[in-house]
Every structure is written in C-alpha cells, then in structure tokens.
C-alpha cells in the first residue's frame, strides 16, 4: 500500500511539474522599441536625447535612451501596459494602455516628447482675496518664457494631481517677462466666502501644448509640470 501511495504522489508531482512548465510558455515575450524627443526651455530640440528612463508600470523592465533617443525594453511578456518616461529636469510622461503581443520582431511605440521644466524660481509671491477675486502676483528671477497654473483644494496636500479647482493656464510665451499675475473669480471655483483653501502654483514649459490624460487620477497632466511655490493657506474673507 505504501508503494501505491508513493506512486500516486509521484504522479501528482509529475502532473503539476509537467504542466507548470507549459504554463510558462503560454505568453509570448518580446522587445519594445521607441524613440523619445527632448525639447528645451526655449523650444529647441535637444541634440543629446540620452538618459531618459523608460519603465513599465508593474514590471521590473527598465531601459535608458541613447543619444538618438532610442530605447529598447527587453523580454517583456505579452500584455497591456502603461509606459512611463522619466528624466530629471524634464518631468515624466505616462503612455496608457499600450497593447503588446510579443514575438521575434520588436514592437514600436509612438514617439514621445518630454519638455524641459522651467528652471526659473519665484522670488516673491503675493496672494490676496478682494471683491470675490483671488489675485496672484509673482516675481521671478529672470526674464523667461513659461506658463503658470494655480491649483486649489480644501486640503493642504494640494498638488497638480490633487485639486478641486485648476486655474486657466497663463502663458508668458511671447513676451518674456519677470512678473506674472492671475485673477481667479470665486464664482469659477467650487468655494464660498469664508472657506479655508490651500493654493499652490506650478510652472509648465510654454512649448508643451498638449499633455496627456491620466486615466487613473482622472487629471490632465503636462510632463513639464514643476512645483513653483509652497502650499499657501488662504481664508476667503
């Protein structure tokens, strides 16, 4: 009887092992190739496009671009992926739902462009609330082309991905200037007189016309978003 039991266990083991091996082969693998373009603050194409890190959300696969902006992610199993492009000083871009089958020839993704984040910094910032208008005036260190956007939330962890209200994007692209100003009417926002709100300012590269829609956070995102101010507490009185 013992021998009988051993045979059964052996059989089960054989069964599990035998089919496990095949399950690993079900999904095809392959490489994903793509090209990344870099645009600097002035709007010019950057010659050396190396050093952009490309990763796939949920996988350990990672690749860096070469001087031509080319990357190749190796041995990626078939699937639908979000591809993240990231470079210090250029922010990050996320391509959603890239469908990949795998095979002997690499798949190609559409070209992605990353825009350099504005290098300027805010030197002084004045925010006030009068006549149901939130007025923002800021000074920056040097004349430059840039775009400004303000985000407001009723919680202090306000950011470009966490807000109730996003202001219109004010572009100072054509006449470089050291000062920016913006007015937000209370009636445009979901707030009322007496509310306590938190406000933060972001810069965007003014050459970045189109960002991308983040389907998970349900927010429209620009790759060159750069936090330009600290979070400012404001009572609307």
């Amino acid at each position, binding site marked *: *009887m013992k*021998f*009988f039991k051993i*045979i*059964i266990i052996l*059989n*089960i083991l*054989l*069964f599990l092992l*035998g*089919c496990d091996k*095949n*399950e690993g*082969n*079900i999904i*095809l693998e*392959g490489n994903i*190739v793509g*090209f990344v373009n870099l645009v600097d603050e002035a709007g*010019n*194409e950057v010659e050396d496009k190396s050093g952009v890190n490309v990763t796939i959300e949920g996988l350990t696969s990672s690749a860096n671009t070469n001087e*031509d*902006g*080319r990357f190749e992610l190796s041995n990626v199993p078939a699937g639908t992926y979000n591809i993240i492009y990231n470079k210090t000083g250029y922010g990050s871009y996320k391509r959603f739902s890239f*469908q*990949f*089958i*795998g*095979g*002997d*020839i*690499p*798949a*190609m993704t559409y*070209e992605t462009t990353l825009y350099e984040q504005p290098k300027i910094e805010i030197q002084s910032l004045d925010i006030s609330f009068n006549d149901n208008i939130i007025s923002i005036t800021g000074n920056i260190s040097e004349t430059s082309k840039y775009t400004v956007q303000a985000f407001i939330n009723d919680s202090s962890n306000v950011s470009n991905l966490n807000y109730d209200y996003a202001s219109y994007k004010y572009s100072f692209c054509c006449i470089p200037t050291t000062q920016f100003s913006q007015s937000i009417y209370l009636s445009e926002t979901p707030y009322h007189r007496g509310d306590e709100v938190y406000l933060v300012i972001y810069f965007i590269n003014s050459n970045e016309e189109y960002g991308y829609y983040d389907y998970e956070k349900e927010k429209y995102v620009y790759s060159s978003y750069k936090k330009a101010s600290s979070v400012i507490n404001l009572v609307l009185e």
Partner: protein
Amino acid sequence: MVKKQITMKTFKINNIIIVFTFFILLLIIACEKDTEYEELSGQLIGYVTLYDSDRTKLSDNSGVEIIVEGSNPQLKTSTDENGQFVIDNLKSGIYNIILNKESYCQHKLVSYQFVGGNKPATIYQTALYSQSNLQIDSLKITDLESKYFVEFMVNAKVSNQNSTSYCRYYLSNKPDISFENYITTDIVYNFSGNKDISFYLQIDTLKYPIGSELYLIMYPASEKNQYYTDINTGNIIYTSININKPSKVANITIPEVETPWW
C-alpha cells in the same frame, strides 16, 4: 493460503498500473490543451492598391509579393487581381510585412502586431506606387546672400517627365547623405513639361550652424507621404521615392548672417 496471497499482489500491481496510466493520460490531455493555446494562430488578410506614375489606380492589382518578416519558416504569398492577399496559419507575434513588385516602390509595414484567433485580421488599403521615371540631370544650390537669414535657391534640371511629378529632397550636414541618412526632408512639385525645378530654402542655423557644410540630394518621388519608421535609427523612411535614381550630391557652406535686431 499461498495461492491467495499471490492473487492479492497481482491485483495490487494491476491497480497501480491502471492508476499510473490514468494519470499519464490526464497529464497528456491537460498539457496538450496548454500547448494548443500557446500556438494561437490565425489568418491575415490584406489589400494592396497599385498606382501608376500618374497616380491613377490600376484595375489589375495582382503580382505583389508579400513577405512576412519574422515568421519561421518565412511565409510568402502574392496578391490576386483585386489586390487581396491571404496569409494562413500565422502565429501570434510581431512581424514586418514587406510589399514588393518589380518597377514599384517597395513598402514595409513595420512591427505589425498580430494576435490570431478564429476570425481573420485585416490590413486595409496599402498603396504601392509605380517608380517615377523622372531623371534628375543636375542639381545646383546657390546662396541668396540674404542679410538676416540663411536662404538658398535650389535649381535642378530634369528630363524624362510625362506628367506632374514630385521630387523629395534631403538635407544633412554629412556627405554620406541618402534617403536613409538625413536630417530634414521635404517634397517639391514639378508641373508637366517643365525642364527645371527650382525652389527656395530657408535654413535653421540651430540644425545647420554657420560655417558648416550643407549637403543636398534629391530623388524622384511618386507620391508625398508614404513612409515607415526605421526601428534602429528612428528615421522616417519615405518609400514612394525611386531609390535607384538619386541626383548627384550638391553642397554649400552655411554663410554668416547678421542677428536681427528684433
């Protein structure tokens, strides 16, 4: 007593054999199912339209050779009169599909992702253009001596032209310029009967710095837009040009210009 013991043993051994066979069978069935899934395959159908040098559709679209690069063994077929081609038993995977016909411009569909399944996948309306017969006899580039901008005039003498045709020119800062190796490119038109093509060129000094050498080459083109992306370099490769009939390479030094006051 002794006899009975022997029969018991035989019974046990028989039992063991039955159980073992049963499991082996189960294993084969289970694993076979997986193997079937692994080799998901299907049919790929495509349509190719042929255009002659006047860019009019042909009624007979047959004889285009279709090669599925990346399939092993390599699958091949050709189009019928309607331009239809059918690839059977194509395994799930990524392929380059090459379209080839003598005296037509070769085209390539790069990194085509094929899933497979019960219904055919379809590639609609791929065009193949007849190679242009235009001959570019000479190519000249001259400086317009503009004050603030780098501006050139390009003149080409052409022959063997039977209808309104296109040319595609390429610019580079290296002498080994070709349709695969360039920095910028654009299309120019030539109207029927003209023996000269001339066009104006304004140069971006960020791409071609002052003092450097600019190289120019031109190819007869059958159409404006058809291309694929080179997976190694990322270059856009325009496919409706006649790669066998390039012009000679012309070159010029980028002149110095004044920076505009504005």
